[in-house]
């Protein structure tokens, strides 16, 4: 082995990390080469001294460290409780902001019906309004012309009744906030003019007294290419509910609507 080949192995030799075959080769070379031998010896001495030195370089563990670790433990134990508390508060706030709650109060409404009044009465029914409607969300288009409940009755009204339980599943906000819904710019909403309504179905009470009826109408606006469906229900429990939802018309339908 030459000096050049031996040189980069000297640290490993000094650390006694070489395998046997290499160790023998390096040691043989060191016997013959005083320069490399001196260098290897120096490295071995430095390593030995460094290892001896470490004992002088460490103070004892500070007494306060254990206390500080204990304090941090208390904090980390408290953290899950804080997390649970925050989640509970957030859930409660979210539940409240959900805005749709079923009222147990029966809201009396007047029998009189007419233009515009049905909508007004619907606003008095707490469960039929979402918080978004209440706060006059700027992204919502203006209300469609109110549907007069004086529409002509079908020749033979069906005696279907809306189950009272349905009231508990009535979430108008779902209609407004469907995932595929596209919110129109406010400027476009303002110039929306609604076409005359198309009555899809209307059911009138078969008795004179308070009885359920349900009206479903649809309308569209060629300007904003919106189609609106509106459903009004007068329920057995004397409450009046209004649901409506807007959708953007598909391009093909919008074209035909414009031509018409």
């Amino acid at each position, binding site marked *: 082995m030459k000096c050049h080949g031996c040189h*980069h192995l000297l*640290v490993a030799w*000094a650390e006694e990390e070489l395998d046997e075959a290499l160790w023998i080769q390096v040691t043989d070379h060191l016997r013959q080469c005083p*320069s490399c031998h*001196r*260098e290897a*010896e*120096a*490295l071995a*001495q*430095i*390593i030995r*001294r*460094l*290892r*001896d*030195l*470490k004992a*002088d*370089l*460490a*103070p*004892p*563990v*500070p007494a306060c*460290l*254990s206390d*500080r*670790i*204990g304090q*941090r*433990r208390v904090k*980390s*134990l408290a953290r899950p409780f804080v997390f649970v508390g925050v989640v509970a508060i957030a859930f409660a706030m979210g539940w409240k902001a959900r805005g749709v709650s079923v009222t147990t109060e029966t809201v009396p409404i007047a029998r009189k019906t007419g233009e515009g009044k049905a909508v007004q009465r619907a606003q008095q029914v707490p469960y039929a309004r979402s918080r978004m409607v209440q706060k006059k969300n700027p992204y919502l288009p203006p209300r469609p012309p109110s549907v007069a409940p004086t529409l002509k009755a079908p020749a033979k009204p069906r005696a279907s009744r809306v189950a009272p339980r349905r009231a508990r599943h009535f979430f108008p906000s779902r209609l407004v906030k469907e995932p595929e819904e596209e919110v129109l710019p406010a400027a476009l909403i303002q110039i929306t003019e609604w076409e005359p309504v198309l009555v899809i179905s209307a059911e009138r009470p078969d008795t004179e007294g308070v009885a359920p009826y349900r009206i479903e109408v649809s309308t569209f606006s060629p300007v904003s290419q919106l189609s609106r469906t509106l459903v009004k229900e007068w329920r057995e429990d004397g409450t009046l509910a209004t649901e409506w939802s807007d959708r953007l018309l598909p391009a093909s339908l919008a074209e035909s609507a414009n031509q018409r």
Partner: protein
Amino acid sequence: MTEEELVRRAQKGDQKAFDALVGRYWDKTYRLALSIVGPSDAEDVASSAFLQAWKSLSRFGLRSSFATWLYRITFNIAVRQKRKQAREEPMEEVEEGTEPSLWDIEEMASDREIKRLLHRLVQQLPEELRVPLVLRFWNDLSYEEIGQVLGVRESTARMRTAEALQRISDRWSQVFGETFGGRQRE
């Protein structure tokens, strides 16, 4: 009790087990901090490293040894602290060209002086050579573990350590005119 058992107990919240780990690794952690930030902040850095380790212990998955993980934390904290020091006030450099006086050389016969001077030579090394040297000879890590702590390859760790030793040896020869073992240079 083995290191793994202690770590598992500490992960379950056993502070005594963690105290045992502190006792086991305090010296080495302190020395690593000392080699990076110097004596003034070494204790703070080592304490912070243990507190950080205690806080993050639940995330330690025993994929490496506890020591390697702890040294990595210590190294990061120390490097941050050193940068902070550098921003606040210029680092007090160890004087590169200081040579011992005649009196020093006479006194060098004592073992204590040799250690003191050797320590000074270690402190004079640049950080990228000093830290692997300290991890190797003061913290007894393998080169693979040093690579893990510093985020470099094993061969790089090996090369830097060898370079550090070589520089100490050369410097010693320059200053005292003889190799570390005491023989006169040719």
